[in-house]
């Protein structure tokens, strides 16, 4: 028999369904971090992230039969459950407190006019600003940024988690990143210049 640590997720799930407690703990230790961080990056609340992570694995214990390997990996399934639970909780508790636009603009992470924008700010401040900007994104863009950029999962997996097409993930990511850049860029005079620059783009 393959050791638990070498077994893939599906095998561990099968063993867990057969009553193997160690399979559950192995699976949990392997996947809890990603789920926890995903939720935390989505909502910024440690308590909520812990709750949702626990609920995800309770769902797995109680309703593991709902997982269909044909529809995607177990990790995608778990993150998808986490996402749905999180959105439910947020909707129910109205947890969202969107950051003010001004706040994000007052603490820019970088200025694209500089060659090395992050030099302008301390690293901590920059990260804090970036985190705030991500939290302030609309949900549909935030989740793809979190999944693809922070969790670094593939477009295909993100599509499985979100239940949408890969093209949708790509376009949302593109839009989400553009919004992030806009939020992190100080409100400035160069809007006019950027508009002018747009018109001078070369269309070869």
């Amino acid at each position, binding site marked *: 028999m393959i050791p638990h640590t070498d077994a893939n997720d599906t095998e561990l799930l099968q063993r867990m*369904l*057969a*009553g193997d*407690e160690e399979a*559950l*703990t192995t699976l949990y230790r392997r996947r*809890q*971090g990603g789920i*926890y*961080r995903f939720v*935390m*990056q989505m909502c910024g609340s440690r308590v909520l*992230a*812990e709750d949702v*992570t*626990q609920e995800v*694995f*309770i*769902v797995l*214990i*109680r309703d593991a039969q*709902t997982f*269909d390997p044909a*529809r*995607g990996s177990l990790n*995608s*399934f778990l*993150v*998808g*459950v986490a*996402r*749905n*639970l999180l*959105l*439910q909780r947020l909707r129910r508790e109205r947890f969202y407190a969107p950051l003010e636009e001004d706040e994000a603009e007052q603490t820019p992470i*970088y200025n*694209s006019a500089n*060659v090395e*924008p*992050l030099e302008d700010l301390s690293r901590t401040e920059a*990260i804090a600003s*970036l985190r705030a900007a991500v939290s302030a994104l609309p949900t549909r863009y935030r989740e793809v*940024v979190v999944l*693809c*950029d*922070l969790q670094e999962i593939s477009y295909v997996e993100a599509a499985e*988690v*979100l*239940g949408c097409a890969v093209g949708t993930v790509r376009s949302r*990511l593109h839009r989400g*990143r553009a919004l992030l*850049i806009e939020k*992190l860029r100080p409100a400035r005079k160069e809007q006019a210049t950027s508009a002018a*620059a*747009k018109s*001078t*783009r*070369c*269309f*070869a």
Partner: protein
Amino acid sequence: MNCQSFEIIVNDLARDQIMDATVREQALLHSTSCETCAVRFRDEQTLTHGLRELAVLMQAETTPESIEASLVAEFRSRRPGQRASSPNGFLPIAAGGGESRGSYWVYAGVAAALVVGVVIALGVTAVRFRNATAVSEPVESSGKTPSPDNVANHTDSAAPVTATVRGSVENQENPVEHTPRRNAKRLRVAKNTVTVQSLNIMAPDLEVTTDFIPIAFGNASNVQEGGQVVRLELPRYAMARFGVPVNEERYDERVKADVWVGADGFARAIRFVQ
């Protein structure tokens, strides 16, 4: 490559995603020749760098051990492979199924069932109401609702067969005050009165009769006390008072009727004969 094409792939380029080597070279070449796209590329690279730093910083974040312990306890409390219903009403949520669509469908189903139930109830009520009004509608639409005087005159001119019968008609208290709906209700009551129906003994086999209709001042239950049935003729419009539909074209024709006269000499019920 132009700026539009560059814009499409700038994300993947900045994120070091796998792409065609030729496209990559062309994009990089374009970013060196176009200042706007170069700035755009730098922005994307900076953002990617910042996001990766953020991801690395959060890599250390993990759940407390108490969660694992509680999950193991939960697992132990269940038999292997057993699928129990959740005690707190928790609904399983499949991945990629949208945002809690399962619970939405449950709520939507319940709401749809309620709506269908209300519609059916309203429909049944409407049909019943329509049936009730349909019975009395000819009277209402005739526009010639007979007045007590008219009825009395017609009764007089009709030269009733017996005094008893005549008396029974004349002694009716404000017979026209019965609204069509009340008459219809009375008619239904008469149809359900088995005792009265059992009195249909005088009608020849070829005759078609209505059920006995209790007359307002009488009591249909008194038929047990005895009495007799008397055949007489009445103007057709007299039928309207008892909630029986009347054909306007034959309004003045005469119609046969059987009147059940009680032992006390009062008319108890009436039925019409064709």
